[in-house]
């Protein structure tokens, strides 16, 4: 997740208390049907491109921005698969608490070569569906969708 002005501005007013955040995630496959997964710095599990929406940002734009920031890829087309409700209260290292509502998109058209941003994303690569690493909740969701 990249630096988000909306999150920062809201946190300045509400502190660490729980809040509902909405965002988007993208299921990206290559021509061979392999799925793009990324591992965030400090994390062990692999997941999808995802992030929280800015103020008034359309979900497709959130996905477009996060794809560019986290992977260097350009979004050309996406379709909504599901709207995921939170499964738990998330608490991040600085104490901030939130519930996450995530629009899961299938990216139907994209271009570019995936490159991890080197700041938040430690690793980034395509995996065969039969040979997936340990997955985050969103990664598991992707596996369900592709099964």
């Amino acid at each position: 997740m990249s630096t988000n002005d909306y999150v920062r501005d809201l946190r300045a007013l509400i502190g660490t208390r729980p809040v509902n955040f909405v965002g988007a995630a993208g299921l990206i496959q290559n021509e061979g049907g392999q799925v793009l997964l990324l591992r965030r710095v400090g994390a062990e599990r692999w997941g999808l491109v995802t992030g929280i929406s800015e103020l008034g940002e359309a979900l497709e734009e959130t996905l477009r921005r996060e794809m560019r920031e986290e992977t260097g890829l350009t979004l050309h087309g996406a379709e909504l698969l599901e709207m995921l409700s939170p499964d738990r209260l998330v608490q991040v290292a600085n104490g901030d608490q939130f519930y996450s509502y995530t629009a899961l998109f299938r990216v139907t058209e994209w271009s570019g070569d995936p490159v991890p941003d080197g700041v938040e994303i430690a690793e980034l690569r395509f995996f065969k569906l039969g040979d997936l690493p340990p997955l985050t909740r969103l990664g598991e969701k992707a596996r369900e969708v592709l099964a």
Partner: protein
Amino acid sequence: MTAPNSVRDLRRLVGPRPVNWVGVCALVVNAAGEVLLQRRTDTGGWGTLGGIAELGEALEDTLRRELREEAGLTPRGAELLTVVSGPGTFQKLPNGDEFYQVTAVYLVRDWTGVPEADGEEGVELRFFPLDALPDRLGPVDRQALVRLRHRT
């Protein structure tokens, strides 16, 4: 839209400045293909049923809660049609509160109960044919109903 406790709590801290609210819109459709709308107490205009999610509330639960509160209905199934979001969802309430909406639009064809307005938020409930919808619908309702027309 209903103002759940989480909304009131957050407003105490952020005041009227714009925030992103996540919630649901329920398109309750009868056997004739008509959609249920409510005439709102605050604005006097017609709108879809639905509202803002409580803190951490699953959107399917928000849908059930709002249908029960606003119309006395119980959904027996719901299908996600689309999610409406973006700059066009901006609203400013008469009290000055500003917000953008991220709204999961559900189609509800199977439900039980007899629609009855709650008398607080909504003063009247009525089924409308999709080709004879009332004027002055909000931006999210308009997009949701366009999607429904394409669907049915």
